[in-house]
């Protein structure tokens, strides 16, 4: 509905003008020091992991001696870490596995939590709405921007890991979890696919954060609540007594992206993960919309 309404205007504005807000929102978000700092922290993770593995293996010993089936990380460290010294491309998978449980969703929580509440606490929300941005249009724009940030954050991790991996370790054909060999080019393709799946895994947290953001007039409170919820869910997901509930936690299938490194790809958990993220986006997106469009803006 957001674009159609502009059409009845006297001066006949182009429906495309509606996207000016999205452009402005993207520019504003990615020009903030806070956003750049978050991306910087995320970029530091693969660098640190890469250097650590390099130091660990510099005496010639291989890290944990990862055989073809060692994709699970052997109980020590994140998935794929054992293979990094054999092939730098595995640093991409390791870095994503290391940042997905906490660093990535925390960064998303900060950006999503601040989306509406930050504007409210700065007072800029009332001017956007009087402009008039339109509540539905503003909310959609905010959500699109958070999704863009999910993608950017994931790609920052993946690209840094790719560069560091190529710099510190040999690259070449690689072995999948199932033991088959694939070419480096195909490996790169899988890495890109995995990055996209990881970004999509964050869609649920993004919707949750946006909903929390419509509940309060304080950006800090919204960010803290979202990150708090994230930690709580991660802890509950570890408690065996709650296994009946766990399939509904947004983080439950996150690490299923590793299944993309099987030959053939094992889709079950991947599909469950994406379906769950879509469910979260629908439920909390609707809740955010219902809340935001009916809210009295007094800040």
């Amino acid at each position, binding site marked *: 509905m957001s674009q159609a*309404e*502009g059409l*009845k*205007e006297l*001066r006949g*504005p182009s429906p495309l*003008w*509606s996207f*000016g*807000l999205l*452009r*402005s929102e993207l520019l*504003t978000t990615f*020009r*903030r*020091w806070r956003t750049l700092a978050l991306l910087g922290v995320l970029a530091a993770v693969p660098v640190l992991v890469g250097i650590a593995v390099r130091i660990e293996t510099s005496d010639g010993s291989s890290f944990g001696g990862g055989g073809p089936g060692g994709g699970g990380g052997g109980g020590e460290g994140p998935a794929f870490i054992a293979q990094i010294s054999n092939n730098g491309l595995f640093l991409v998978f390791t870095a994503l596995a290391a940042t997905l449980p906490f660093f990535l969703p925390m960064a998303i929580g900060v950006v999503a939590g601040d989306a509406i509440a930050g504007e409210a606490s*700065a*007072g*800029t929300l*009332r*001017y*956007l*709405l*009087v*402009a*008039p*941005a*339109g509540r539905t*249009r*503003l909310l959609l724009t905010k959500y699109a921007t958070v999704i863009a940030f999910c993608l950017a954050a994931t790609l920052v991790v993946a690209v840094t890991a790719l560069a560091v991996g190529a710099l510190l370790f040999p690259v070449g054909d690689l072995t999948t979890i199932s033991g088959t060999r694939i070419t480096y080019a195909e490996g790169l393709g899988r890495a890109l696919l995995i990055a996209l799946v990881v970004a999509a895994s964050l869609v649920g947290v993004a919707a949750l954060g946006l909903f929390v953001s419509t509940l309060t007039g304080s950006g800090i409170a919204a960010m803290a609540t979202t990150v708090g919820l994230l930690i709580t869910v991660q802890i509950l997901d570890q408690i065996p007594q709650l296994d009946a509930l766990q399939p509904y936690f947004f983080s439950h299938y996150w690490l299923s992206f590793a299944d993309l490194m099987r030959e053939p790809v094992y889709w079950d958990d991947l599909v469950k993960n994406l379906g769950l993220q879509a469910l979260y986006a629908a439920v909390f997106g609707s809740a955010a919309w219902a809340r935001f469009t*009916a809210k*009295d*803006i*007094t800040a």
Partner: protein
Amino acid sequence: MGEPSATEPGQGSAEGVEGAEDAVIATRALTKRYRGGQLAVDGLDLTVPAGSVFGFLGPNGSGKTTTIRMLMGLIEPTSGTARVLGRPMPRAARAVLPQVGALIEGPALYGFLSGRDNLLRYDAADPTADPRTRRDRVAAALDRVGLAAAAGKKAKAYSLGMKQRLGLAAALLQPRRLLVLDEPTNGLDPQGMREIRALVRELASDGTTVFLSSHLLDEIEQVCTHAAVMAHGRLITQGAVADLAAGARGRLVVTTPDAGEAARVLKEQGAGDVVVAEDRVTAEPPEGDPADLNAALVAAGVRVRGFGVERASLEDAFVALTGEGFDVAG
């Protein structure tokens, strides 16, 4: 919500202007009760004529800002209706608000953006604003409020007065039919205040209706053609400023070294509310010719240095209407 207006409400008639006469803002029994039960605005019937500079007066906490927020579609009324530019709010917000410039409860800016980028962002938020003319319109708005030189500076480095000007510039990004300015001279120095007043007059002479809220009575008196007074969420009066001030009677002022004697004589002659301040005695004039009063003073041996009736100010009108001072509502 009921639509008490005679015209067809909503979709059908795009030009529902006839029904609302030529009022730019018309509210009927507009009421807002906050969730805590506090009645912020109580049955407001406000009519702002087109082309007027309308002063919206009231102490802090009297419901001015809540009213403005309802008019701008930020707050849903509990009951009653509000029409802005002849269309119902908040339902017609998409069509109405691009023609309205607003400064609500002080400016709000992105501190990490420059003044120019702040305006570019607010302009981008309006889906009816042409992006091809955006930069020019932003430059013109900055120029109009005297901020052209500071346009590239980060907004967090702005002084309060500069922020206020930038907020005004945001309201002037497009030609507007209505400007809603909530306390526009807050934080400005006397020179800045004078510039804003000049700007308001200039905009009004171009045909823009200006709705100006303030707690500064003399400010309203200087620029406004019409005014409304609110207290405790209720509208006390509205009308042309000249009529409002005329409603209150002027005060008698006698300057004399014999202040005590003068006060006694004035009371004797039937003057009320006699106040003595050093060599100045003021009072409510009694009925009759002031010349007789002067004669009585002179006859009593009072050495009169000055004698006259001061024109009633809006403040006198306000005090006469509310029976109280201009303090924060309890």
